[in-house]
């Protein structure tokens, strides 16, 4: 059989990661280890909450990454609608997925914090509730992407939803904060992401490092995911060509 596919020349034949990607992976690992050192050893214990306060670092930095990821979805959605280039759609899809993963972290570490300091698993606290709704919005976004039909239709519709969904976020947050502050006695004070006592500079250093390492992790995951998605598309095309050759 004469081949029309130049498999050896295609970049995805071996799925070998690029140098930049490998450098980033190592940078991520090192920075995560550093932030662990900073969190557990370097940063002082908070006086009232003791160890539990350390949940704060992972909770806040995941929330930051989730928000960043959804913001990226928003920007890329606009760019897709303007330029109609598939690459933006691929990036947006993977970014939403990673955003959902980090939102899940926010929503699991939040209740653990709540349980330990307020003795209840779920607090209808503005930031936590907003995360929950955010989670639902982007699950819907992922469901749109799994619709049937050609990719350009799905890309267009999910881009529209990516824009609408992101603009909804601040309004959701505001509504929930009002709902809380006006109709419930203020038992909880501020949310889990704001600590009772003053922020010691060491804690801030640890938080910033953790945030940077999670952001790096986000970049690595995004890169990897997009790379695999591209490879998947290429493989689909090869399969299509093969099928045509076998049939016709």
């Amino acid at each position: 059989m004469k081949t029309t596919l130049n498999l050896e020349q295609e970049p995805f034949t071996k799925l070998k990661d690029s140098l930049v990607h490998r450098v980033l992976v190592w940078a991520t690992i090192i920075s995560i280890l550093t932030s662990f050192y900073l969190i557990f050893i370097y940063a002082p214990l908070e006086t009232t909450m003791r160890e539990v306060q350390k949940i704060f670092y992972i909770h806040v930095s995941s929330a930051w990454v989730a928000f960043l990821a959804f913001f990226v979805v928003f920007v890329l959605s606009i760019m897709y609608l303007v330029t109609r280039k598939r690459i933006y759609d691929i990036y947006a899809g993977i970014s939403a997925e990673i955003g959902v993963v980090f939102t899940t972290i926010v929503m699991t570490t939040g209740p653990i914090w709540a349980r330990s300091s307020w003795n209840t698993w779920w607090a209808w606290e503005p930031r936590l509730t907003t995360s929950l709704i955010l989670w639902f919005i982007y699950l819907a976004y992922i469901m749109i992407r799994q619709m049937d039909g050609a990719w350009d239709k799905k890309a267009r519709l999910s881009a529209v939803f990516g824009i609408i969904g992101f603009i909804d976020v601040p309004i959701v947050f505001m509504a929930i904060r009002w709902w809380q502050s006006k109709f419930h006695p203020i038992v909880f004070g501020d949310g889990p992401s704001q600590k009772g006592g003053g922020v010691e500079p060491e804690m801030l250093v640890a938080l910033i490092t953790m945030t940077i390492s999670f952001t790096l992790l986000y970049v690595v995951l995004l890169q990897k995911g997009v790379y695999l998605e591209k490879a998947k598309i290429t493989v689909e095309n090869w399969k299509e060509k093969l099928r045509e050759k076998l049939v016709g």
Partner: protein
Amino acid sequence: MIQTKQLIKRVGDKVILRGVNLSIKEGQTVAILGPNGAGKSTILKVIATLIKPSSGEVLINNKEIKKHALEVKSLIGYLPHASLLYDHFTPLENLILFGKLYGVKDVEKRAKELIEKVGLSFFLHEPVKSFSRGMIQRVAIARAIVHEPRIILLDEPHTGLDQQAIVILNKVILEMKAQGTTTVMVTHDFKQAAEICDRIIIVKNGKIVDDFMLENNNLDLVFDKYALLTEGVV
């Protein structure tokens, strides 16, 4: 009247049109022929402003269709395979609704005239859903020309029609032609194409492969050229 430049349309990973260049003068009647999946209907849909081309441009009356969308749309009458009619409405209600959307003046009078023209006066107040295919197609053609378009685009208008409906349809098309309306028709029915049209375009694999004028309704010429281009090559 109609000009397309390097039209390319991709849906997903499939390329449907691969650079279509077309130029149709005012008053011409053009038949687009070609095998299934060649992209005939897609060309029509792009001209009808229903789908956006991936690249390339369409000019109607020397106006870019994206920039002058509303103006261009009101010049075009589009009759696809589906009827585009509302089932629960009577022919009259359908025509009045679309007449209003197209900004037709004295819409009720125009609608009644058209219904008479397609021979459905007796069914003025019956809902469309009780009609046969032939009757629906007659209302559909009336709908497509309710605003007296300068261009009509027909997508396999003769498929599934009885003889009487075909006669009425051809009468309407030829009448429009006599008034100088530009007609583009996608069809599999060579006989009707030869009868109505004075120019034939053959499309294959998303490209125009032949484009010739037809005189004296020369059906054999169409058959010969078509056979040469589509079967001869494969």
